């Protein structure tokens, strides 16, 4: 399982563009079937724009179960953890509702 440090790829976790960089890094690993631990070492804040682009857009191409099996996080705070889980929970439910409709 590879450890990827967020701050090795972006200066902060702020914009959609920052999120896009991390999304691309994750896709590269996922497409090789590799699991990733993403380290937030040195990161004190992460905006919803960053989280949406880095992680939620992965749902367009990978199932939530696949993402959970391949992606984990390290060196995080309670708030960042809760934000990631809450965003996934909301978007997965939204997508289920769309399918049901």
């Amino acid at each position: 399982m590879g450890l990827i440090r967020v701050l090795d790829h972006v200066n902060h976790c702020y914009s959609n563009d920052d999120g896009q960089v991390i999304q691309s890094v994750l896709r590269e690993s996922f497409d090789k079937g590799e699991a990733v631990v993403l380290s937030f070492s040195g990161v004190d804040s992460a905006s919803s724009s960053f989280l949406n682009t880095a992680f939620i857009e992965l749902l367009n191409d990978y199932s939530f179960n696949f993402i959970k099996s391949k992606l984990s996080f390290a060196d995080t705070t309670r708030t960042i953890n809760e934000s990631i889980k809450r965003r996934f929970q909301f978007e997965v439910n939204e997508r289920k509702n769309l399918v049901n409709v």
Partner: protein
Amino acid sequence: MYSFIDQVLDDDSLPRATDFDFDFTRLKFIRPVGVTVLSNLIGRLQKYGSRVTLTSYQPNRGKKHCPIAFLDDSMFFQYYLNRTLDPSASLRPTTRPLENVTCDRSYAYLDQTMVWLAGKLRITKESLGDIKTCLLEVFNNIKDHSFENIGSIFVQHYPNENNKNRVMFAISDFGIGIPHSIQRVRPGLDDAQALRMSIQEGFTTKTSPRNLGAGLFVLLQNVVKINKGEVYIHSNHGILSATHQNGDIVINSRITNGFYPGTLIEIEFRTDTIEYIEEEFSWD
């Protein structure tokens, strides 16, 4: 505030004249939020080519709450006249200077502000991560929705007001306003209803395909639910307040007679509820 803005801007939020004199001689009191509104207003007038002069008396430093001394110390006159009124004016230990911050500089600005605030509160900068996230959401909101790229921001620390230790952030843009943006996709809503809609998780006007409608929801969760602070949003003809009561967020919104040409967000954080908790991640 509304009547003052109405004297200056017309129904299309354009200057009513080409020359304005802002006369401060009868000013009795100004709140931090007033500093940002004034700044935004002057910025708007200058953007459309109006000439603005400022008339004031010398600050009376012998008077306890002299509003001109407060404005001078906030660097308001320094910003717009390139000099302070009083040579002894200096930034108060409880405030950050008034700044007009562009979105691309907002991260650096907020980072510096968190260093300042951490020093005031004698805690680590990392402990202020949740507060920083909230302010990042506000600037992302300006960038994505206001069709402007700049926010006026003023920060004041109240170390001991009514035995409460609080920090107030006032951020204003003079963009199109949240209700206006929402009514383009939901034309039936009035401005108060539109503000309520804007804070719903998952509601988005899709001004950018990447918007998922989380920013203002996250702001309220972090400030009100977690920190037990308060948020007030003034935009177009709407006002929305979010306060904490028994573990929940209480939302009120109403229509105003006056018009705010853009969005003004007041965020009041409690400093006694700030916590920094490192936690191992688990999907469960």
